[in-house]
């Protein structure tokens, strides 16, 4: 489902991108340390799941490239829904689908099963926004993509902790 892309030793599509600051670790509150108080899943928690995903091209995280932002995460714990919008660094970024897929897989692996999740491109920020969104929303296509060893490898690399 994703084209070859600019992987490997070739030239980068965007060699000198804008870098954004990383938010620090979420401070632990007294409530979070109290055994009795339940903590609901909120936008920051979802953002913390996806902000450290690595960009497929750069040694940078999606947060540092401003591909994901906390304000573009909508979550409702009682209704079990999550919506994440992401913004490719350039409108023709060939990595958009791959980035969307990585976010989707990360959420699938990290959220309780009850959640219904929607990962899409921030409206108006990519040339083939509609097509990418359609692919990401299609469960069968996502499942099929993860059967592809090469794609799974790239996604896993994006989700691995940097050494």
């Amino acid at each position, binding site marked *: 489902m994703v084209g070859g892309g600019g992987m490997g*030793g070739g030239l*980068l599509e965007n*060699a*000198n*991108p*804008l*870098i*954004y*600051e990383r938010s620090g670790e979420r401070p*632990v509150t007294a409530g*979070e*340390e109290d*055994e009795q108080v*339940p*903590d609901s*899943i909120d936008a920051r*928690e979802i953002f*913390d*799941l996806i902000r450290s995903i690595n960009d497929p091209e*750069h*040694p*940078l995280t999606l947060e540092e490239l401003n591909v994901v932002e906390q304000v573009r995460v909508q979550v409702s714990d009682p209704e079990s829904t999550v919506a994440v919008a992401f913004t490719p660094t350039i409108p023709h970024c060939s990595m958009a689908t791959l980035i969307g897929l990585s976010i989707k897989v*990360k959420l699938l*692996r*990290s*959220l*309780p*099963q*009850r959640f219904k999740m929607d990962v899409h491109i921030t409206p108006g920020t990519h040339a083939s926004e509609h097509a990418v969104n359609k692919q990401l929303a299609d469960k069968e296509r996502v499942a099929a993509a993860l059967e592809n*060893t*090469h794609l*799974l*490898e*790239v*996604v*896993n*690399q994006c*989700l*691995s902790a940097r050494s």
Partner: protein
Amino acid sequence: MAAAAALEAVAPTGALWGLVHDFVMGQQEGPADQVAADVKSGSYTVLQVVEALGSSLENPEPRTRARGIQLLSQVLLQCQSLLLEKEVVHLILFYENRLKDHHLVIPSVLQGLRALSLCVALPPGLAVSVLKAIFQEVHVQSLPQVDRHTVYSIITNFMQTREEELKGLGADFTFGFIQVMDGEKDPRNLLVAFRIVHDLISRDYSLGPFVEELFEVTSCYFPIDFTPPPNDPHGIQREDLILSLRAVLASTPRFAEFLLPLLIEKVDSEILSAKLDSLQTLNACCAVYGQKELKDFLPSLWASIRREVFQTASERVEADGLAALHSLTACLSRSVLRADAEDLLDSFLSNILQDCRHHLCEPDMKLVWPSAKLLQAAAGASARACDHITSNVLPLLLEQFRKHSQSNQRRTILEMILGFLKLHQKWSYEDKDERPLNGFKDQLCSLVFMALTDPNTQLQLVGIRTLAVLGAQPDLLSSGDLELAVGHLYRLSFLEEDSQSWVAALEASGALAALYPVAFSSHLVPKLAEELCRGELDLAKGDEPTKCSRHLRCLQALSAVSTHPSIVRETLPLLLQHLFQMNKGSMIAGTSEVIAICQSLQQVAEKCQRDPESCWYFHQTAIPCLLALAVQASMPEKEHSVLRRVLLEDEVLAAMVSVIGTATTHLSPDLAAQSVARIVPLFLDGDISFLPENSFPCRFQPFQDGSSGQRRLVALLMAFVCSLPRNVEIPQLNQLMRELVELSCCPSCPSSSTAAAKCFAGLLNKLPAGQQLDEFLQLAVDKVEAGLSPGPCRSQAFTLLLWVTKALVLRYHPLSSCLTHRLMGLLSDPELGPAAADGFSLLMSDCTDVLTRAGHAEVRIMFRQRFFTDNVPALVKGFHAASQDMKPNYLKGLSHVLNRLPKPVLLPELPTLLSLLLEALSCSDCVVQLSTLSCLQPLLLEAPQVMSLHVDTLVTKFLNLSSSPSMAVRIAALQCMHALTRLPTPVLLPYKPQVIRALAKPLDDKKRLVRKEAVSARGEWFLLGSPGS
């Protein structure tokens, strides 16, 4: 008569003939050593051995000849020191001649030559002749590895002892060696061969026209690509080969023209290890190269380094690239130039500037930092490079700071400026006017002050760090700048919302105050004093939280700037006066305020430790004040002031203990003796004469019938006497120890009896072995045994036992094992069992107030290991023997011991303990579960092989515990699930589906901290055996 003598001579030679025959014809190995031993003992000479060998050395069958020569060579290897010059000459001739013999004979011949190469009696000229013969007759690379190694050994031996002779051979020697090693493949031999080449070059042997050949024959191994086979008995690591080859390649500028193109090619390759090795080798080369060698390659080298630093995802490549650039620049800076030569440094730096400076103008873009790092790597190489780069970059960055108005952009720019300023600290400039920063000082100051007033915390922080670096430059800041800076620091010290800037401001104040005490005394301390007075008034009126926090900040600021002796003389009286003010009842003092003052005092004391004079000043000023306040507070009085009650609280006493300890540990022994002569009589005899304000309503007698308040102050005595240097004699020691033991088992007040036990233990630990120590020990043991029998003071006796045991365990006293056993016995005591289990934690941990290394206690470094080895078997045995309801105590005790043990010590013991730990996981006690999990987690990381035998149990138990009612246990269990992924993947894969299913449940845990661990554990399990992980 003559016949008898002849017979005597024949008898041993007859034996020799037998031995030789057994070795040569009988193919037995033993006789060789026998013959060698007989030669050494003088039973017969080497000549006789040769005669005995006679026919076998000339036997037409090569195997027999080989065997004969082998015997001779083995004898020579053991006896070469006995050889006479004459013999050596003959033997050499013989062996050289044999080099032409059948190939089966050659290995033994080489062994013989190796023996002779070690021979001191070797006459001049023969070394050269041997080497010539080898070069001429032997095709070394067609020999087996061992024999090639022998050839290298012969060469090495001669190079060590006959350097001058070999040099006489000129370049022929080098050429001969090149042919010897050409094609070598064995890593063991390569290590020796590289060593020889290194010596050839470094000891200045003639290379003649063979420089390129010598380079080729070694550089063909670069970059080293060698993976030792599993279970390699030779233990040669890839790193050994890399380093020894690098030593060769980087040993001479004469290789430069061949090596540099090779390095550039390998940096440009795709293989990470090749890049790293090339960059590191380049770095090493720069130590011996000069401008001449580098000249033609500088543009390519720079292009490669720049590309790597700009594009790499690997921090190691970046670091090595920067290091190489640093060395290149240092090398260019260092070279001595001929008058007419162009200085390459300037053009090289100009190139770097040209490629990097425009990136500095884009503070949001990715390449800004790599560019800054490259420039800083070059600038850090020499004062000249630093000047060249900063004089170009600083004006640019100053301008960029003004152009960019966003705080985060300014922060990046200022952070870069800070990097360049720090580099200037490396160089000292003799002449004041030459200092390159002088010209930028005003701009830099105004920029820093702008940063300090910016609302963005991150920018403030960089501003504060920059200010500290500017201040550290000698004679840079004017007194006007300093006054402004102090004003800013004062303001930042009281910033309320964000703690980071405030902490940084205090640190900077401390650093700058040490350099500019006058500026801080005149501009900061008075303001803080004023603030403190205002705080006193505010507190008197009733506390508002914001004012309270201002008050705390003020106390912290006072201690932070006490980094110069002259400032301490102003701040300490302020703090003490403040404490007295509270006592006068003019304020409503809470526990937290008094503790805050004590903490400030403690920090001041810490800062005084470095300077003996300040240290004594602090001690003799603060300690009597604190004691006077405490003694006064302990006096029975009709109307207790609030402070009086507060001062005797446990937490406040603990804070005072830490002030007294800190103010005592660094005293010189004679001053400490002055102090001890006052303080011990205060507690034993109620001698209050040295206390200020010492009119008390009744006597101070903490050890006699004094009130419980007075007894509590024993903690302060403990803080003092247990921090004294070991050689300070304590007056009335006998009486003191007896009083302490008595008080420690007195059931009235747990905190004073514990303090007495600790004090007793602290003194015991420092006493030299001898009768006095034994008496005190007997006293304690008797008291403990009496107290442990059923009665009211069992728990006090237990506490005394625990502390005395600790004191002895730390110093490896022989009695410690006996006391530890007593303690272990208490694990099955229904009343004291749980306390005894927790006691093991105390035995193994470091205390903060007594028995510390800082407080001069005798603490042997291996005491934990020793405790472990001595006691764990007994604990395990006790566990098995204990009744079911006592088992948790043993597990808990054991958990405490294991937890504190350095992991390398623990690993070998694992197999025996693991089953017990696994059993402990099923124990229902949360503390045992938690401590077992925290013990297993590092073991999973460090000893995955051992742990993988138990994977089934581990998975099941960890998953069970991940739904424990205790949040801490759930978290620890999930961390262990995460650590499990370090086990070998094939072991884990069968469990993967089950684990991923099971970990879905904690993803929906009600606690966020648990979910976080579940997410990272589950994520790792997904990656197991999956491509790309």
